[in-house]
């Protein structure tokens, strides 16, 4: 039997007349918003808008800074942390590895055009990932079910970034807010997104949760 979410998904898509000539983007987490459980404010799972995400590889920090400073106003950090401003967020994932989340597609395209593939290798990985935001008073408890790393507010303060396993799925998790239980941005590969989403919903069942649907892709 087809799961309910799948039926819903197809009804919606067919209703939109998706077999037209213009290709319509789709999102693996296209569900209506809903609330469930004892206290829906305990855990809030929201699907973030589609990403404009660039993978940056560079062994020369000066070159990276020169590449990024003018268009983004951001520079590399020395620790696994996120730097953010209204234009973009830059997360360091490894000694020569960053991910830049552009807040506009135009900025991402500009940087892709600008890249020369020698000193700074820039790869568009926007569609490889899906972003989820987790917040609520019990968000750290839900994450504690999924992650073995310490996500306590002192050990993992705002703008900390970690590439880790969440529910046995590789993710990049960033703390985005400390108060009201905290908020976390989770970037997960597109193929695993639905598994992780369902995993997190199941983990939040004992507290109650709110699901906020994916915006129009």
């Amino acid at each position, binding site marked *: 039997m*087809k799961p309910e979410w*799948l039926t819903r*998904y*197809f009804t919606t*898509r067919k209703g939109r007349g*998706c*077999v037209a*000539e*213009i*290709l*319509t*983007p*789709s*999102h*693996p987490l296209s569900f209506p918003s809903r609330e469930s*459980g*004892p206290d829906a404010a305990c855990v809030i799972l929201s699907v973030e808008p*589609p990403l404009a995400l660039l*993978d940056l*590889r560079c062994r020369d920090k000066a070159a990276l800074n020169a590449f990024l400073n003018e268009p983004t106003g951001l520079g590399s950090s020395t620790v696994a942390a996120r730097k953010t401003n209204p234009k973009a967020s830059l997360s360091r994932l490894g000694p*020569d590895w960053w991910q830049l989340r552009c807040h506009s597609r135009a900025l991402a395209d500009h940087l892709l055009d600008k890249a020369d*593939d*020698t000193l700074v*290798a*820039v*790869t*568009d*990985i*926007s*569609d*490889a*990932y899906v972003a989820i935001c987790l917040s609520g008073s019990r968000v750290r*408890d839900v994450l*504690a*079910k999924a*992650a*073995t790393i*310490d996500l*306590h507010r*002192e*050990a993992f303060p705002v703008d900390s970034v970690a590439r880790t396993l969440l*529910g*046995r*799925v590789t993710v990049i998790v960033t703390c985005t807010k400390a108060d009201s239980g905290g908020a976390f941005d989770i970037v997960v*590969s*597109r*193929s*695993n997104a*639905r*598994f*992780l989403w*369902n*995993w997190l919903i*199941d*983990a939040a*069942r*004992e*507290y*109650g949760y709110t699901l906020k649907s994916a915006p129009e*892709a």
Partner: protein
Amino acid sequence: MDGATYRVLDGCRINKDKPLDFWFNGEKFTGYAGDTLASALLAYGAFPVGRGLKYHRPRGIYTAGSEEPNALIQLETGGRTQPNLRATQVELYGNLIATSVNAWPSINFDLWRVNDWLSPLLPAGFYYKTFMGGGVATGRWWRLFESSIRRAAGFGKAPSAPDPDRYERMNAHCDVLVIGAGPAGLAAAAAAVKMGCRVILADEQAQIGGDLLADDREINGAPALDWVGATLKTLSKAPDVRVLNRTTVAGLYDDNFVIAVESVGDRNGPPAPSQLPRLRMWRIRARQIVLATGAHERPYVFPNNDVPGVLLGHAIRHYAGGYGVVPGRRVLLGTTNDSAYRTARMLSEAGLGVTLADSREAPPPSLVEAVTRVGVTVEVGFAISAVRGSRRVCGAEISRILRDGAVASAPRSMEADLVGVSGGWNPALHLASHRGAKPVWNETQACFVPSNLTALGIHAAGAVTGVGALADCLDQGHAAGRAASKAAGKIRRTRKPVIEGDDVADPVPLQKIWAVDNRQPGGKRGKAFVDLQNDVTTRDIALAAQENYRSVEHLKRYTTLGMGTDQGKTSNVIGLALMGQQTALEPEAMGVTTFRPPYTPIPFGALVGRDQGELFDPVRETPMFDWHVANGAIFENVQLWKRAYAYLKPGETLEQAVKREVLAVRNGVGIMDASTLGKIDLKGPDIVKLLNMVYTNRWDTLKVGSARYGLMCREDGMIFDDGVTARLGKDHYVMTTTSGNAAIVLAWLEEWLQTEWPDMQVFATSITEAYATTTVAGPTARDLMSSLDSDIDWSNDAFPHMTVRTGKVMGVPARVFRVSFSGETSYEINLPARYGMALWEALVVRGAIPFGTEALHVLRAEKGFILVGQETDGTVTPFDVGMGWAVSKKKDFIGKRSYARKDTARQDRKHLVGLLPVNKSTVLPEGGQIVDDADQEAPMAMLGHVTSSYWSPMLNSGFALALLKNGRNRSGDTIHILSLDGNADEARVVDPVFYDKERARMRG
């Protein structure tokens, strides 16, 4: 069941306003909220609740905690049933259902009791000697009695239905984990909080307070429970403290990784609120640990010490103080130390007749005077030497005792229906043992204590160190909390609080008595049990010594001492001490067996958690997955990917679907979801150097816009992956890999780049998921592509085989590869993944037939294309599969030197060949072994095996690929393929390319 007439006191743990009905062995009982199953049952008297493992003698509740050897019960029924829970740890809830285990047909009439009467024939080692020891009769005897023995052995029954409950797992981190929330643990937690630590306090009991809950102790001149409440309040106000009651720490591992199991839903009974887990497994990573696990009281052994109504002395106090239950009217307490005096005083003050037999010649006068004043009869220098009764205590004997436990006088008969024994205390050092800390013998307290813990990041405090005084426990707790905090890097000046206990002013050390040797005339004889759960008696220990078992580990295995669910918590030390007496060794020299995790049994559900059903394993879905599901696809798992295997129309069989899909590609156009193929973006000026090293062929001449096939080998020269790499720009390539090896190849590249060639300027980035890949294949593929709105010229001249083009397809930026795994004209369209579904639907609307991986396998096998992992298995070189053309002789690459090895250079290795069955309708078995002569004697000379085998609608015949010894030189030979059913199929060795040998179709 008649009234709970043994509930004679108020208990601080129960709420008498909340009566709860429950069922035990089919009878209805009533207890109160706060009761354990054990306390609620004892309120009805000390009747049998279990049977011994071997002799099936009636057994009653013996302890009040996790050390319980007797009262194992089966909780609930159906899928929720749990075997071997200790009644002493099961919290009572309304309509609880519990049954006894290990009795047949019933607890009150157990036919296996016959073993008790036959016991002279069933000494320790009986089973080994009779059934395992060899000899002519061994096997025959075992076959004869096996089913009966198996039925009689073991406790409890495994559930026969799926468990409907939820189980959860949590990770937690802390500076200090305090295990045990008695006085020492609470003091340690409070100290660590003051030092600014993140603290987790875990205790197996429902209520915090440990031993203080069972007693009328005082701290700082006020009731101890006031101090417990105040400390808990302090902890609850601290921001980073987690108090986990009902949580048993089950295992300690390296680096202070700890597992603990919290009972969550169990206490509510079925059905637990559906969202709540029944149990929660905690995985705690603690910087430092305070071990405040307390101690288990141990008995001393005497004849008939297993009769229901014989309890540990401390357990009697526990049930009286905590639950108001005293399961007897006339109490005999036997002790070797000070601790039983509190019990005696409590019971006597409650109006019960109490006799206290203290084996010591000079107990503390203040204690004797205090209990005598309230009516307790104290018999100094006496010990319990026997108990009378079978189904419950109906009397006892005491005897004057010598220092070594020998009886020095004729026994005196005592009226008693409740017997408490207190032989000293065994520190609960099991968790320290998990970390490999060897226990050492403390002669003063006559017990093993943990040692050398600090280096492991563990700080022991309280009774686990062997101390007994409350003040010492509190002091040690505070000190351990501070020490652990400092070691965790939290250094803060704090003032030591004044905490004083109400300990006896003139304590007297305990007397070491392990067993009362009752050989005086007129003395009651009977079995004296050392290990109540496994029915190990003093005679069994003596027999082991007589048979020259010396090591405690051998003693354990020979007698089963210390095995089972209680792991010998009350019996181990006595057993080894008795062994020492037999062999003239002190306990220190004997040592103890190793305690291993878990501390108490863990249900499988807690280990599994939510990793079941749809959440059993992560699943990877392609952007077109929903379409596949909605259109009848059946899936195959490729690593974690769900790949469409075939699309079954209503009424269609798999074979019919595959045939339809194959013919669609050969005669028209088919589309396949190839999004799972590994895609690695390569950037940097040294890509050609990298490709030349990781692939066997040359890459110097690849032009922008062109693509090339490559074979990747390990250092041993064996194929481990293949794929097409295309050049998109001067310093920009895209490598494709097999679906299953995408992550492995990326890691392989990174390993070489980071460890061997750090100067190579290449960056590799996975883009597998960034693109949805749709393969369009078939003789009319170009027509289909031309129907799409695109700025790409699809003509063969402008876009020939093995090239790549970028442009827009239906308004979306695309990379299109002209490569073919089917042997037909084929395009691989790579679009940003979000557009994958829409393109797929657009192609279907245009008449393309979706085909799955099975059709693809048929198509590629007809062409003789290898599939890594099917034609290769880590022992196959490029030359073996006839791909020497892809191996350059002019450059170095990983694996090249291995081809000079004698074995890889052999000309008669197994080669890839094609097979055509003589009977065309046969599809040869994949994996089938190839032999020349199917009638030869075993062991047969195996020549190779079938690697891929399918039915070909184009050939109208079965066909196969195989690895055959010296295969290239055996073309035309007839060989035989063995099936598992013992039959053999005949087949002819042919060229591995079955279809379009000129390769004109894919180039066209």
